[in-house]
């Protein structure tokens, strides 16, 4: 399964981005890593170009909050992205924030999976669970 990943905005925190790439790869995903300092358009362009089924955006400095507001609007400009699995993780608030406030907010922005300060492996476990759950539903149809 193909995944596009990267760090959104003017964030150059590269260490976790590289570890996400390694971990996804270890779990058998085909990874297209756009690296740090990536804008929303670049993510969606890459999804179209690669035919990825998952988009995993990360953020450490918290500026994802500002960018994510535009996700739905931007995604609507592209065709055939309805079944794209949208995931976001990292530190999703500038300063401190509670997961119970942050998760619903990002779901509202259009993300299927939201991991605020969640351990990397726990986050990827949830992605895999989400994928197999969806596959089960498809096959039961």
């Amino acid at each position: 399964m193909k995944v596009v990943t990267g760090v959104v905005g003017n964030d150059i925190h590269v260490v976790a981005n590289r570890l996400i790439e390694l971990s996804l790869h270890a779990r058998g995903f085909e990874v297209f890593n756009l690296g740090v300092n990536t804008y929303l358009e670049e993510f969606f362009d890459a999804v179209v170009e690669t035919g990825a089924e998952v988009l995993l955006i990360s953020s450490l400095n918290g500026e994802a909050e500002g960018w994510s507001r535009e996700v739905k609007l931007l995604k609507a400009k592209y065709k055939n992205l309805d079944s794209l699995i949208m995931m976001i993780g990292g530190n999703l608030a500038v300063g401190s924030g509670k997961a119970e406030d942050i998760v619903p907010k990002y779901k509202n922005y259009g993300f299927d999976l939201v991991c605020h300060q969640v351990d990397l492996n726990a986050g990827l476990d949830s992605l895999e669970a989400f994928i197999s759950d969806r596959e089960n539903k498809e096959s039961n149809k």
Partner: protein
Amino acid sequence: MSLLQEEREIILGNEYVDTFDFAEVAEFVSNAGKDLFISHHFKTSNKMLVQPRGGFPTYKKQFALYEFFVDANVDVLPLTIDSNTRLNDYATAKKMLRLSEDNEMDMLNGYPLVNHGYRTTRKMMTHFNKPVSLRHGTPDARLLVETAIASGIFEIEGGPITYLLPYSKNFPLDKAFLYWKYVERVCANYSKLNEPINRESFGPLTATLVPPAITIVIQLLEMLLSLEEGVKSFSVSFSQTGSMNQDIVVGAVIKKLAKQYAEEIDCSDAAIHLVYHQWMGAFPTNKDFAEQLINMSTVIASMVGADKIITKTREEASGIPTKEANAKTVANTQYTLGILNGLPNIVDEQEEEILTLEVNAIMEAVFNDPADTLWRKVFNSIKNGIIDVPFSPHIINHNEMITIRDANKNIRIISKGNVPIPDHCYAYERGQCDLNKDTTSIVNDIIHDIGIMQ
């Protein structure tokens, strides 16, 4: 008029420069006191030189910082440049400097040297009469370096690789090589007038599990790029690895190979020095622990036989340090150096041999690139992954090399990507690590290995 001089006149015709008087600057450099030249101190001093880091936006605060450093018995003063100037955004630097001057609040993370200008800055440098080191991170440092030398700053840190791969995602690497070629030539030309201008490479790179072979190769290549333009005094550097033995091995190998590779291009007349950076990774937030770490770094620098040590402060984990904390490290480091006597001579021949073979193999691959000049060979080698820097954010970097720490905390290569590590060296590196773990546990180990000092 030479092409270089034509380029200089364009660079210095910048609207933020208040008429650059080439003849007057040459006159100043020719007659400058020897004490301003770190190359002179390297020649005459028999102790390790101590240099902190530090830069404030205003002249007044920078001056006050230097007074603290001098009281703490500093050997080399730093001039750290703000991030706007590093990106050649002199307009923003100018605005932020004015705001800092008007509001008693620092709006820049360093000294905007171009905006202050050389006439003003030179007053401060000649007042303290100490060697000053320019610390920045600028891919295009042409104007900055001209201004620095005209100000009496006779050591220039950086290089096309070490100031680009750790700091930038997409600044074109080929342009950086050409901009740094200009810097080398200007340094080489001024070096003919008095004591040599010292160039220093930035060995820490990303300071995140960079294997010694990559560090040394990049140090040697930046040294060669500098010497081939006529620079006569150069410092190679590296930062604390996390293993004392590995630090000692790196020190021994880099000293030996720097001399050897300089000789191979008939530059044995150039003086080569070794600089050691105290721990450059994440620091403990406990300030007392931070001081212990700093002290340990100083001991290792002595074991390594460094010519200069660059210090951190107890406030590293919390942001830009106060001048008091910064000066305290200088005084403490000088004290530790003064009482460190009777150091044992440790040699690990096996580790030295492995590392030497790795470095030579990578260097050979770089030299074998078919391009016609050294900088193009290096550019191609980075592009095709012969040189691969772990955790570089730059798009040109291959990101295929994977490193972890072994039981003694030595950094080891477990996945070499396109880097031509000889087979038995690679087997040795991997043999030191537990590779039976699954990748998930290895990723957890990497996270732990990055933060070992916290």
